[in-house]
């Protein structure tokens, strides 16, 4: 039997006034920890996750260099120097130079701008479009859903390269914008499916049924109730998609459909260096390392975010 002996022993010493009923102290603040909102809680969880947090730090460092790196290097990224061709890393050229004598430190960070922008914008655009599409399909269901999902199926069956080539030909450019359009044109399909699945579940939830019964406009229900409740999942999907876009761009660069010079990207740098990597391994190493670091960081961050944003894990 559990008895607090310590208390019993000293029972007699308790003064009488301790036994007047005071009832519930309405004003007393319960000594609880501060109530934390969803996002602050998520942020706290993320910080707890050392791996994910480290990934975030690496990403911030990368972003710092991507913004300031080209300036730090002291070279213009497109400046050709016939006397400094294929020089290894040195005090003058920290990452060495490429086959036209251009400073790789400047180029790697300049390229990072394109790669990261393609990654982030691509994933965001695809997610927004996909979420809305998936949301609409799930919300209306029935024939609308059927038709919309069939369209997705058709889009997914059309080879992606044809679309990329077509876009670059129609717009007659291989600019960043073109690349983004080309990459996201079918890229949203995956997210649309994901969101639809999630939304179909949400749709049967009481609060959505309630909103429906109250006659709230469908678009409002999608925007106000369904999207916010899938936002965590969407953020995670974006995080996982970003490296995917960076990779796709690298593939397109390899095939020769990448970003147009003088712009460059990590993929373009890596595929340029691939031919001669046994002679100038550093030329391949730096861009490949950046791709790998970015991929790694986003993936680990995505894992962390998934854990942090999952309400099921919130206790």
């Amino acid at each position: 039997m559990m008895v607090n002996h310590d208390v019993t022993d000293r029972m007699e010493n308790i003064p009488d006034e301790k036994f007047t009923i005071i009832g519930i102290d309405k004003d007393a603040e319960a000594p609880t920890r501060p109530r934390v909102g969803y996002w602050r809680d998520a942020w706290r969880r993320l910080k707890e996750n050392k791996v994910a947090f480290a990934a975030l730090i690496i990403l911030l460092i990368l972003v710092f260099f991507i913004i300031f790196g080209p300036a730090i290097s002291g070279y213009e990224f497109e400046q050709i120097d016939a006397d400094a061709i294929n020089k290894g890393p040195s005090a003058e050229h920290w990452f060495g130079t490429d086959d036209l004598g251009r400073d790789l430190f400047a180029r790697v960070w300049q390229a990072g701008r394109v790669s990261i922008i393609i990654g982030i914008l691509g994933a965001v655009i695809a997610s927004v479009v996909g979420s809305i599409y998936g949301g609409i399909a799930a919300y209306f269901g029935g024939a609308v859903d059927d038709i919309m999902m069939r369209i997705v199926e058709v889009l997914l069956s059309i080879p992606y390269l044809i679309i990329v080539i077509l876009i670059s030909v129609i717009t007659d450019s291989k600019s960043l914008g073109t690349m983004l359009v080309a990459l996201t044109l079918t890229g949203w399909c995956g997210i649309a499916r994901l969101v639809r699945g999630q939304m179909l579940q949400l749709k049967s939830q009481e609060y959505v049924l309630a909103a429906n019964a109250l006659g709230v406009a469908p678009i409002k229900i999608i925007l106000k109730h369904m999207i916010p409740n899938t936002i965590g999942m969407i953020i995670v999907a974006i995080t996982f998609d970003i490296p995917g876009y960076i990779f796709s761009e690298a593939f397109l660069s390899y095939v020769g459909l990448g970003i147009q010079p003088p712009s460059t990207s990590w993929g373009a740098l890596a595929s340029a260096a691939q031919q001669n990597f046994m002679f100038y391994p550093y030329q391949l190493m730096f861009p490949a390392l950046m791709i790998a670091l970015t991929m790694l960081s986003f993936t680990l961050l995505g894992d962390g975010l998934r854990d942090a944003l999952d309400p099921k894990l919130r206790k």
Partner: protein
Amino acid sequence: MEKILEVENLNVSFNTYAGEVKAVRGVSFELSRGETLAFVGESGCGKTVTAKSILRLLKPPFAVIKPESKIVCNGKDVLKMNKKELCEFRGDEVGMIFQDPMTSLNPTMTVGKQIMESLMIHKKLDKKAAREEAIKMLKLVNIPSPEKRIDNYPHEMSGGMRQRVMIAIALACNPNVLIADEPTTALDVTIQAQIMDLMMELKTEMNTAIILVTHDLGVVANFADRIQVMYAGEVVERGTTKEIFNESKHPYTWALLRSVPRLGSESKEELYALGGTPPDLLLPLNHCPFADRCEYCMPICKERKPPETVLSDTHKVSCWLMHEKAPKVESFYDRRDK
């Protein structure tokens, strides 16, 4: 009566990112063969954790049963069992039913196989024998045409039927103890009664002791022999069903009782709603956990933990109101009832 289960000073903690949550704090109780003991309390009071601890179903390293705890079932120390012994113990000595029959059955396995699994492990039956036994069990839990139903998948059954299947699984090996964790919460009201009746029927038939975990005092009143009222991981009052319903001494028990609607009551009084929230179990708790929500709170309540006062062999309560210096108060529950 033969003691079938003894739990002493059970302490369970959860390791969370914010720190250690002491979910169960020094819970002790005993269970005799054929007896029904109910754990009552609101969500998060530790009743389910206590129940799961008996089968060691909590997942380390997240949840830890503290070493000072002791669980003895049928003479065996549960906390000292190795993996193999534990597997033999689970399902054979103690069976368990969970709250939500919709999610508690493997969706990709026929119900028959799920019942047979237990039989094959503990009774070492071959497939054929296990199947026959499983059909028997289904018949026992009143499932019509069990020979056909045995090959059904869970999704082909209604909630009530699934819960019957859960009971069949839990009782398949005729365990000494059946732990039913909110067995009726997820079911329709009409089905609830059927399930409870079934459990009681089987209990008598098999002489199984039952631990009934619930927040529904209505269910408890009709089926439990004894009741343990739990609050914030501690047992605040315990007694026979009669003692708790008629002579309860703890303000929390009163609050619980007042929140149950009662047929035949003349009173127009509204149902009582308990204000506030339970204490944060992350924080150290050196006083009465209920103090902040208690209408009869005294300064001492916020300073020290109340000792357990023994009112009878069966009735015990942990409350400063039992102290000789404390004013005598009457239960508002009783007041209303008179």
